């Protein structure tokens, strides 16, 4: 590996100075793609015919990157990691991807995900399980599993992701990299295969905060094709990173971070929370004020159920277009009902079908009030609570998950229930559409763990700047799986 372990700015400089060509970068990235495919099974498609582009003043020009397979890419297979779209080649680009293309970025592969983003393990894609490059016995988490694995393994400096519950920010933690989803609507969702429209965000996985800022600067912008997108032309994320965080205020939530709140905590959990408190100390050393706050445990406990209800309800409707009639592998049948039934029965994994059943159930007129509408109400309560915190604090800082990446062979349900909130609190960032970033903050059992900072809507620059300062105070910036660790 000569170049692909470098940051975007370093690569841009090398390209500008003519010390390396875009073609050389692409070739290296493709070679690494094949190696990582062998090791981690991270890609649905590797674009061996990727072509170099002229180098411009845009930092992304000529640099290879990866695209999650739920981004619609014109002329390039886009499966959403589902058998239902295993041969689907779109005829239009997702807005975010076309913006990167315009910036001169070169897509070299499409990354594996949990089927349509509906999973948090990276094990449910139609091309098989994605393995963690730090330890192939472990999962990457999901759904942006392939993107996280590839960036962590140093295939390129960044890959795009999408995040409905924590699908960028959790795999980032498990893979020891940065995962950032900006405020809802900052990046157009046009051309992203929808999972749950009110929760879906696009974002990016990188190895440092500045790269994340640079990439999102290029992906964002109001889009006439997405009514929920907004004009962010006055926001310049990369330019606003100055590392000056003195006097900034963060809070963490006692009910989530206090080890005494967990019955029979595992050793990993203890280490994880201890490590988190060390990160809090680092924040304080940087001049950030950090306070512990308390949030009603009942409200926090309701969050995972709220997520299931709302995301399944929207998903079941969003994916009703998958009938195999207009696109997708059309199934045989005597009539259209049989054709659609067969296509969906054979095409979707059992996990997804379960979610569709839940989604239909909670939307039925006799259940809707009790489940769907109540879930929306609790969503509102959680968002209001977080907004209240944002009046006083620049962000909420919390540990990601209950420890490092889980073993692949027992991903089913080894979690004790009382860590549910710890595992699932990142969803609140989706409920409110808040900007939210995960950065690596240490190792447990030689596996990376992460910390997350979430701030108020439209306050992306501030959130990124805090993460930028904190990242610089820790030795995990730009780390590569299998590379040398600087601990």
């Amino acid at each position: 590996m000569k170049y692909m372990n470098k940051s975007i700015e370093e690569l841009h400089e090398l390209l500008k100075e003519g010390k390396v060509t875009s073609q050389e970068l692409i070739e290296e990235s493709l070679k690494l793609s094949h190696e990582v495919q062998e090791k981690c099974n991270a890609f649905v498609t590797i674009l061996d015919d990727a072509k170099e582009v002229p180098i411009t003043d845009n930092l992304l020009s000529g640099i290879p990157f990866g695209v999650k397979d739920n981004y619609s890419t014109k002329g390039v297979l886009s499966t959403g990691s589902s058998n239902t779209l295993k041969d689907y080649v779109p005829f239009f680009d997702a807005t975010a991807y076309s913006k990167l293309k315009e910036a001169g970025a070169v897509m070299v592969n499409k990354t594996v995900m949990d089927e349509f983003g509906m999973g948090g393990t990276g094990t449910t894609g139609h091309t098989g399980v994605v393995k963690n490059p730090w330890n192939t016995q472990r999962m990457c988490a999901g759904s942006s599993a392939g993107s996280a694995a590839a960036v962590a393994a140093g295939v390129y400096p960044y890959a795009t992701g999408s995040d409905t519950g924590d699908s960028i920010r959790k795999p980032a933690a498990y893979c020891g990299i940065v995962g950032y989803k900006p405020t809802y609507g900052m990046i157009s969702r046009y051309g992203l295969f929808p999972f749950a429209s009110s929760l879906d965000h696009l974002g990016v996985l990188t190895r440092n905060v500045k790269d994340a800022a640079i990439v999102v600067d290029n992906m964002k912008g109001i889009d006439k094709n997405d009514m929920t997108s907004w004009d962010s032309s006055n926001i310049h994320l990369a330019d606003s990173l100055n590392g000056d965080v003195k006097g900034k205020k963060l809070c963490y939530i006692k009910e989530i971070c206090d080890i005494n709140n967990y019955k029979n905590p595992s050793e990993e959990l203890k280490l994880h929370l201890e490590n988190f408190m060390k990160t809090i100390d680092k924040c304080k050393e940087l001049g950030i004020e950090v306070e512990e706050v308390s949030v009603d445990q009942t409200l926090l406990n309701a969050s995972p159920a709220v997520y299931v209800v709302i995301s399944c309800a929207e998903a079941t409707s969003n994916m009703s277009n998958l009938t195999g009639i207009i696109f997708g592998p059309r199934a045989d049948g005597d009539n259209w009902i049989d054709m659609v039934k067969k296509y969906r029965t054979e095409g979707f994994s059992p996990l997804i079908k379960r979610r569709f059943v839940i989604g239909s159930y909670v939307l039925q007129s006799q259940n809707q009030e009790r489940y769907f509408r109540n879930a929306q109400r609790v969503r509102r309560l959680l968002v209001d609570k977080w907004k209240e915190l944002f009046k006083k604090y620049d962000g909420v800082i919390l540990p990601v998950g209950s420890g490092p990446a889980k073993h692949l062979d027992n991903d089913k349900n080894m979690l004790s229930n009382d860590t549910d909130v710890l595992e699932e609190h990142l969803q609140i960032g989706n409920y409110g559409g808040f900007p939210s970033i995960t950065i690596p903050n240490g190792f447990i059992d030689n596996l990376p763990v992460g910390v997350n900072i979430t701030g108020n809507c439209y306050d992306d620059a501030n959130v990124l700047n805090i993460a930028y300062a904190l990242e610089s105070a820790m030795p995990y910036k730009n780390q590569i799986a299998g590379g040398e660790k600087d601990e």
Partner: protein
Amino acid sequence: MSKYLAKIGLEMHCEISETNTKVFSSARNDYSSTPNCNIRAIDMAFPGILPVVNKEAVKMALKTSMVLNCSQPEFMYFERKNYYYPDLPKGYQLTQETKPIPVGIYGEVKYECNGEEKTLRVNNLHLEEDAASSNHLYDTTSIDYNRAGVPLLELVTEPDLHSADEAVAFLEHMRMIYQYLDISEADTKKGQVRCDVNVSIMDPELDENDPNNWGTKVEIKNVNSFGGVRDAINFEIKRQTKAKENGTYDTDVIQETRRWDEETMSTIHMRSKVDAVDYKYFVEPNIPKYKISKEWIEEIRKEIPMLAYDRKKKYMNEYGLSEYDSDILVKEKANSDYFEKVVALGTDPKSAANWVNGMILSYLNYNEISIKDFYMSPEMLKELIDLIDSKTISSKQGKDVFYKVIEDKKTPKKVVEDEGMMQITDENAIMNIIDEVIEENPKQVDQYDPQNPKLLDYFVGQIMKKTKGKANPSSARSMMKEKLDSLK
């Protein structure tokens, strides 16, 4: 007819045909006979598509809501109605239910049926997207996605109608409103208007305002012509009445959905209430709730023109036109607009109405064109009428000028000049010609009898012949008579 009181409610779906693009899609909203030519990715629900609301369609919907005297919502929402059908590629239709409030709610409309003014309450009006159209062939069905996403207004009435006549009169009234507002051609032949009808019957002695007294409501879906609406209602009233009389009402008339079958001219069972589809409505998350400002509402209200119903009243009361003429004039807004322009230029309304309803309409019908494509402007018509009124040309010549204007694309004055059609109104000139005629026809002069002036026609004919029709006929006649009488 029936000794029972029928209660009829309508759901009238009318496509908005006058927007440039579809309601949530940037594809053209254009009725086309070539299938599948007005399509964007969203119309076939390719993965990753998002709806974008057409503001013009919302504006038209709000305008209709105002005309129906409905309340308009503070915020605009859309909801998903979820169901699978091949003509609905997304698997859900974007529409508006009554919660949150649709584009219009609780209104009232006055319309006329057989010369009587009636009032109908509107439950709600909502804006939605149309499905694709399916064409069922012998062993296969073809789908045309041109229609997928076309804006559709659904008007839901209270069951305030009592007969098929009233239902059809109301539909005609609404059709005129849509045309007058420039929202839709509302052409049933193009499938732009489709109705669901619900019918129940009750004892006329009981209070019809108490829903407890109403009979069992039967819904008839997809009636696609006004004639069909009339036939379906009459059939259903007869069917339900017969069931009452036979004592089989409770078993034969159940809460169900039926369909109108054109071939057998009858309604046929589709599904009963227990089989009703649960559409799992929920608010479309991809369309942020949109605030409808008071300023916008007022701006839209100002654009509402005087509608047919009020124009007709004006023509009868202010212009003294007959009901017959007024009805013909308001039938098409463009014709009525034309007529009003001619009147506004200072023409007598009766002459203007005679020309529009007579020569002009028959010309338009014969040539199958619209008044918008008609060469003769209101200004030219006024000029033509003035030429006749001032006796510069005779009314018979007026008709020739009318055709010449269209044919030669000239103004009436120019035609009259170029064709030398100015009438001879100079009495000396006419007198000279009279002298000539008398000179040349001594025999007829002898035979002329003032007590029985049958021969006068002959003399006038001679004058006309000599002047090539340019002599003013009535002056020529009276002068000729005077001359002949003086010779006897």
